[in-house]
């Protein structure tokens, strides 16, 4: 049914006009009569106990309307959606530089700052625990009193790894290190709290999960969820960093206490210091293969520094283990996953949930293996790649896996992989050029066994205009555009006739979080379902009016078509008549990712079963004197299942590659003894326009059976995942030296070269 009209066309987002004219309102742009400015007092220490906390002087300042400490929280003083173990305002001990101690609301910014300065806190600095390896040892002391420093320790095994290793012809064994990475969404976290006349609260929230925010705000305020309303205005990026709640809860607490609107926006430095980072991993990995390059076994042990609180650590490590074998057939695998509490920055969701760290490991291993065997990196990947029907080491049987090898072959073709020998490898004595590839998979959706559903409300009015209520947050990834396209297509109207209301929990049903590349599958399919009864009503009226059988009637472009020919009757006219007859023109559509009853048992818990496959190939130029790496060219081939909005799909790929280049080469939060040294966009360096190479892209469309009828897979996460290992392998190709740590800064490239001078390219 999806074959023409709005779907598959390059469309601009419904809000784009407001954005280019400066009219779009994000949280910091919202203003209400009597609105106060909220601010939080954050811990300057990585670890300290609070000897005294006195807010009396702050409360006395004229213009300060509310000052809150832990004692002033009406409900529960803890948050995080999975395991609420982070205090909203700490009681007696701060556990990372960024724990919040007090909250203030004042008539303006200066008065709020004065209130923060007037809060009297006496800290007694404590010895922090900063080394995750040391924190695992007995006698290390506890980061959180009464809780083991080892937050999680799980091992998953399949097959017989020991026997496979013993029989292997070749083994590569390395230790990898990855860094804390910062989302750097251009709009920092924010929320605006309002008190309703009936004592409930309304919160404008820059978030990924409005219904989950509602739950957390209600819990903190001690209110029923029915008295809390969360609305998402325009949101300036998230990338996983707004999946968990942040200051929207504090904004609600302050508004509730002050009985006035409160806007609370983090400054850039506060933002970098206080929200979760991508987990740093230390991974020891052994990969074994036969003489002809067939993978026999993967054995890995991952230790992550989680910071003091849980956040999405379990989920991230779970996904790491799920993908550590890569898009390859691996019969024997063992993955040990350990998360350790420290007094370092908190860590959590960031585009890819552990899959980027895993890909850096397995794709580096593949190239090291290929070198040892004297094989072509393309051939070893094609030899071991999964396909439709492959049973993965997780127990998942791949339903649609042709894209794995198809993306490899297409990327190789676009790059001209067979002409590698003709690459101008040495344009100057100190410059070396190289090519490297990486191919990955990433699951979409929450994973089997976890709730994964969405609902939408769709209504057509008598003039043929359509309103769609969806609880899916649009942080810039474009779900609003996609849902508008699908509604327009399904109801046979122009996209301009569809108004998608940005997520509002008072009006829209729960769609779950905008995470795990899932919304296009679940909310997209929910729109298709919601449209059915409305279309039925319109076609019923049309059949009655024209006397033509319904199966000859189609709605398209705002008009009835009979046998493919445009008819005089418009959709608006049909809507008016349907309402007159009392036929329903509003409907709820609900979709749940349903796994077939005969699907085989999955042994790796909560595995995702819809796979985004992709391959990227990078060309780099390494300056052997300075260690600097320039990415000169990058080919990216991605499987989207089905493209609804090609502009959005290509945009996600371009943006993901840019983030991947930053992750590979420059981005690293530098932390010493729990203190972040580069909490600014000046020295936490994200790519700019000059750093992005010539990008050549292609999108494969291999419809996913699990997400039927839509067939779209989601594309949000996969683009960032292969970039860093592709660049790593290109550096290896260029200089003959492998790197095992991210980011691959000039300094690290130079020290790799120190081990031996630039090797002549093979």
């Amino acid at each position: 049914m999806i074959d023409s009209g709005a779907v598959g066309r390059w469309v601009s987002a419904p809000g784009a006009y407001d954005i280019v004219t400066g009219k779009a309102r994000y949280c910091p742009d919202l203003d209400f009569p009597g609105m106060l400015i909220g601010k939080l007092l954050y811990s300057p220490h990585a670890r300290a106990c609070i000897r005294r906390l006195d807010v009396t002087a702050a409360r006395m300042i004229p213009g300060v309307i509310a000052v809150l400490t832990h004692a002033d929280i009406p409900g529960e003083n803890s948050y995080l959606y999975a395991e609420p173990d982070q205090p909203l305002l700490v009681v007696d001990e701060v556990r990372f530089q960024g724990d919040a101690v007090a909250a203030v609301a004042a008539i303006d910014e200066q008065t709020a700052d004065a209130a923060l300065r007037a809060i009297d806190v006496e800290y007694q600095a404590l010895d922090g625990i900063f080394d995750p390896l040391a924190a695992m040892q007995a006698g290390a002391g506890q980061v959180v009193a009464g809780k083991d420093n080892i937050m999680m320790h799980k091992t998953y095994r399949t097959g017989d790894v020991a026997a496979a290793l013993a029989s292997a012809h070749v083994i590569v064994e390395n230790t990898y290190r990855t860094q804390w990475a910062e989302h750097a969404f251009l709009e920092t976290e924010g929320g605006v709290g309002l008190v309703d006349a009936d004592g409930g609260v309304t919160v404008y929230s820059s978030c990924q999960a409005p219904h989950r925010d509602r739950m957390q705000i209600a819990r903190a305020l001690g209110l029923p969820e029915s008295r809390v309303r969360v609305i998402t205005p325009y949101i300036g990026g998230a990338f996983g960093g707004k999946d968990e709640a942040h200051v929207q809860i504090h904004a609600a607490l302050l508004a509730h206490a002050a009985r006035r609107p409160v806007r609370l926006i983090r400054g850039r430095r506060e933002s970098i210091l206080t929200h979760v980072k991508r987990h740093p991993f230390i991974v020891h990995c052994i990969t074994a293969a036969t003489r002809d390059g067939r993978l026999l076994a993967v054995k890995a042990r991952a230790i992550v520094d989680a910071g003091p609180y849980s956040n999405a650590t379990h989920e991230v490590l779970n996904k790491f283990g799920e993908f550590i074998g890569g898009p390859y057939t691996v019969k024997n695998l063992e993955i040990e996953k350990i998360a350790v509490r420290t007094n370092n920055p908190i860590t959590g969701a960031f585009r890819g949930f552990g899959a980027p760290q895993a890909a850096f490991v397995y794709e580096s291993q593949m190239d090291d293996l290929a070198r040892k065997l004297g094989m072509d990196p393309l051939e070893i990947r094609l030899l071991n790649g999964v396909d439709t029907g492959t049973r993965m080491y997780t127990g998942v049987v791949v339903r649609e896996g042709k894209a794995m090898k198809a993306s490899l072959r297409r990327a190789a073709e676009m790059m001209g992989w067979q002409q590698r020998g003709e690459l101008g490898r040495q344009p100057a004595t100190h410059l070396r050029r190289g090519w490297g590839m990486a191919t990955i998979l990433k699951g979409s959706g929450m994973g089997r066994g976890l709730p994964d559903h969405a609902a939408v409300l769709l209504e057509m009015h008598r003039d043929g205009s359509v309103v769609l209520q969806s609880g899916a947050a649009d942080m810039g990834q474009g779900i609003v555009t996609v849902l508008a396209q699908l509604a327009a297509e399904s109801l046979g109207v122009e996209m301009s006739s569809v108004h998608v209301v940005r997520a509002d929990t008072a009006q829209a049903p729960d769609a779950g979080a905008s995470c795990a590349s899932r919304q296009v599958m679940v909310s997209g399919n929910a729109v298709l379902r919601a449209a059915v009864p409305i279309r039925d009503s319109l076609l019923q009226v049309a059949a009655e009016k024209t006397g033509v059988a319904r199966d000859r009637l189609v709605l398209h472009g705002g008009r009835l078509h009979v046998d493919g020919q445009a008819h005089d009757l418009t959709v608006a006219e049909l809507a008016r008549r349907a309402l007159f007859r009392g036929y329903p023109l509003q409907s709820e559509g609900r979709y749940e990712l349903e796994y077939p009853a005969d699907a085989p048992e999955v042994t790796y818990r909560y595995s995702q079963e819809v796979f985004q496959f992709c391959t990227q190939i990078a060309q780099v130029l390494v300056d052997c004197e300075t260690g600097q790496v320039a990415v000169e060219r990058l080919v990216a081939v991605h499987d989207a299942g089905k493209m609804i909005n090609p502009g959005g799909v290509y945009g996600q790929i371009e943006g993901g590659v840019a983030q991947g280049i930053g992750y590979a080469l420059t981005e690293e939060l530098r932390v010493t003894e729990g203190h972040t040294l580069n909490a600014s966009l000046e020295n936490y360096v994200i790519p700019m326009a000059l750093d992005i190479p010539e990008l050549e892209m292609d999108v494969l469309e291999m419809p996913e059976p699990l997400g039927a009828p839509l067939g779209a897979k989601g594309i949000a996460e996969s683009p960032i995942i292969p970039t860093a290992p592709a660049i790593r392998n290109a550096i290896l190709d260029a200089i003959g030296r492998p790197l095992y740590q991210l980011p691959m800064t000039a300094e690290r490239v130079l020290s790799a070269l120190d081990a031996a001078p630039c090797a002549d390219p093979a």
Partner: protein
Amino acid sequence: MTKKVHVQSTINGKATDFLCEPRQSLLEVLRDELRLTGSKEGCNNGNCGACNVMLDGRLVNSCLVLGVEVAGRKVETIEGLATPQGLHPLQQKFLEHASLQCGICTPGFIMAAKALMDKTPKPSEGEVRHWLAGNLCRCTGYDKIVRAVLDASGCPSPPA
């Protein structure tokens, strides 16, 4: 209370008077006093360009200019770019090329690109990328932004 200063300036072609404290940045004045919230704060220290405006025809980070500095001068913001006849070509091309995702950096990019085109009506791709190096975007990867600017200046750009 700090004494406020009376400032007379021209903002988006209109004579505009405002009161501001000497410490207030132009960005704060635009957003908080004049309610022109199209200029965004991304970093408040000149790194991201989300607050870009034109001051007497020169591109500035409005977070690094004081409100009192604009006395007697002309300020152009994103809100003044479209005319009653329609969108500025840059705005139009940003729409056509889907050059935005979350959109928070977009006003800054458009103002920066306008400053480039005022100076160099037909920039090369290299010139565009160099000129836009002062603007950060975390969503798009910049390609479609560069394409939109090239297209708006009438330079052929390869199709996506």
